[in-house]
């Protein structure tokens, strides 16, 4: 029952946050140059068709009415119809969501497993050659542009070595997931590695770890059991924040690897001024981000009993 109150508070905060995000995105779209109806007609547009299309898209109505209509539909679970694809936005998003979830989960696994592993290894012998090499690689991972890294990985592992596919979803085949997940995961692996190392080094200096060592507890037990659990708290925060990195990196990774995900779809929809799709996709991203952070908060409660007490 200790979890209920903090959980309820965070859930209640979700509504205003999501409302604010949709309002902001709608307002940005409204002030952005470009007319969705004109963008849908290609280079040569008949003025009469343009007028009819603006009417069909309800773009000739006041902005407040447009936004209120969108919110009204949203409350009934309807995200509207895509201007460009002429299909319900929920259907458009549902088509792409599985690919994005798959990629995000795989990239998170990559960053957690590789990042925590590298961080823990580096922390075992701080200042050693291995530590310097791992932390150097971590900085490289953080500072390498996603697009470039993706192209290089594809050139080496797909074009030159022919070990993995160049691009595509491959109907869900795992081999198609490897390079996109490594590319997107690399963005965050370095951060997780550096945080794990720093956090572990802070914890091992604490008295209870020194006591455990003095009592003759094996070093792997000291690090793996006693130190790691406490060191995880800041690492979990970084993983949570990393969701934002994943969302930022997803469109680029999806573009390089022709991955049929939400990120790429959102970028295309912005270019086409397909407002219903933009609003729907941003809402999904916002929900993922907010819920992700909520899960991080919950993870604190599980990992650290002191957080429960303070709540």
């Amino acid at each position, binding site marked *: 029952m200790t979890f209920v109150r903090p959980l309820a508070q965070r859930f209640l905060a979700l509504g205003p946050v999501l409302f604010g995000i949709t309002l902001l995105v709608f307002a940005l779209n409204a002030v*952005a*140059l*470009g*007319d*969705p109806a*004109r*963008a*849908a*007609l*290609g*280079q*040569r*547009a*008949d*003025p*009469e*068709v*343009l007028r009819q*299309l603006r009417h069909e898209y309800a773009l000739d109505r006041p902005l407040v009415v447009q936004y209120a209509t969108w919110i009204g539909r949203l409350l009934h679970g309807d995200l509207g119809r895509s201007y*460009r*694809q*002429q*299909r319900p936005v929920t259907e*458009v998003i549902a*088509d*792409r969501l599985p*690919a994005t979830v798959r990629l995000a989960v795989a990239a998170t696994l990559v960053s957690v497993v590789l990042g925590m592993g590298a961080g823990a290894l580096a922390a075992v012998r701080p200042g050693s050659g291995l530590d310097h090499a791992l932390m150097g690689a971590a900085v490289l991972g953080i500072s390498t542009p996603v697009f470039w890294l993706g*192209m290089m990985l*594809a*050139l080496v592992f*797909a*074009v030159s070595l*022919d070990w993995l*596919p*160049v*691009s*595509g*979803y491959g109907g869900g085949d795992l081999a198609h997931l490897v390079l996109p997940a490594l590319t997107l995961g690399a963005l965050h692996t370095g951060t997780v590695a550096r945080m794990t190392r720093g956090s572990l080094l802070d914890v091992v200096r604490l008295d209870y770890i020194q006591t455990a060592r003095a009592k003759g507890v094996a070093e792997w037990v000291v690090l793996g059991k006693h130190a790691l659990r406490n060191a995880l708290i800041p690492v979990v925060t970084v993983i949570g924040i990393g969701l934002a990195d994943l969302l930022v990196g997803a469109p680029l990774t999806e*573009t*390089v*690897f*022709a991955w*049929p*995900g939400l990120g*790429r*779809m959102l970028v*295309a929809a*912005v*270019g*086409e*001024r397909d407002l219903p799709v933009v609003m729907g996709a941003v809402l999904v991203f916002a929900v993922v981000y907010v819920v992700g952070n909520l899960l991080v908060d919950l993870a604190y409660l599980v990992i650290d009993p002191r957080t429960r007490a303070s709540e």
Partner: protein
Amino acid sequence: MAALPAAPAPVGPKPGGIFRLAFGTDPPTLDPAQASDTTSSSVIRQIFDALLELDERLEVRGAVAERWAVSADQRVYTFHLRRGVGFQNGRELGASDVKYSFERAARGKRPWVFEKIMGAREFIRGRASDITGIRTVGERTVEITLERPFAPFAYLMAYDAASIVPREEVARRGATFASHPVGTGAFRLGEWRHDDQLVLERFPRHFRGVPLLERIVFRIIPAEITRFNEFRTGNLDVADIPTGYCRRVQSDPRTSEEVAIWPTLGTSAVRFNVERPPFDDRRIRQAIAHAVDPRVAVNGLLEGCVSAPRGILPPAMPGFNERVRPLAFDPALSRQLLASAGYPGGRGLPRIAYYYNTTELNQRIAELLQAELREIGVRLELRRLDWAAHIKLVDDGTAGFFRQGWIADYPDPENFLTVLFHSRNIGPAGNTSRYRNPAVDRLLDEADAMPAGPARFERYREAEQVILDDAVWVSLYHYSSRALIRRYVRGLERSPLSSAPEFLAPFRKVWLDR
């Protein structure tokens, strides 16, 4: 331009096989009435048929129409439909399907395809219940009457917007017809995983016989370098050549024999809004036109893989005239013109905003223009925008100096000159220069209504020269199609109307020699 690779002697078409291509974007729709982009059109052309079609020599051939006749006054077109043309749902196509499809598409996104037909404008604007100029005569004859003679009308009947659709399927599917299309084409939709791949399967009961290919797979691959890598690894049979790779693929022994480059009916240009100062002064426009050296862009940025500008009309366009003279590169004359307009050495001339849409090539061209105009004292401020924002500012007249390209919808000068420069098309309809010249309007009106032939083309030549002399449009280069095509791909037509083979070629003619 490089010559096409010589193909080995044909051994005769082999049936079967999967033809693999890629698009940069997912087609937004597969409904001929709703399409307005080349990607959608290229799939529509495989699923549907129109009354007529164009071959790669741009000659009109019968498709659903077996034969057709034009009246002496050039206003009445009578199309006789083939027997046994079946829709993919099993029903036979009849004359009423043609009338239904045209009226439906006339109220779609490309009404201009039908607006020459008598009564079409009233129908499009909702003031008539049908297009009076389309009349069915019995089960297999359609008679179309035009408002006035229009020589390129047969081309319009080959356009994908004029594809024939079955009424009952449209009624049954409603808006979802766009993703569940049913036509009479050689291929039908098999599977469509949005943003991933679209698969077409052969339609064995196609009226021309069983298509050779078993299947066509269009992968959706947004990055051009990824499409190139997929081609290199053998996963695509056709791919485009990435920007900046044209010379490299021609000199690389692994790809040189697969490079195909051919002229396209398109021109890339910069335009002025002649209503907007300082471009309302012809001397300023001419000064800028004389300061641009297209050879730098053609041979440098575009690696010699496009043609140098010869006017507004591309050289491959029927009616192209060698005597047309664009304003030549002459910086000294540019300076004189600037001085005569009151801006010696560019002094006193405000900084000019140049608008262009976001592509790497457009960015490089903008920087090149900036450097060239700096030589005559004109300072250019670069305004890079995405397509939607760019087209808005161009359409509404905000942009005074901007990039614009044009690829012909059909092979006739009318589709360039009348669309882009007639005063009735000011704004989004095509005349984004907002150019009004009664003499040019008169020449274009006369030419548009004349029967095909040299006299008609001569009117267009006169109009083109006036427009060039007025420096409303400065051509930078004429487009070419650049593709990598596997040597075993046979029968893939290379239409000058298309910027890529996948956009126009009828795939029913394609077979794989392996």
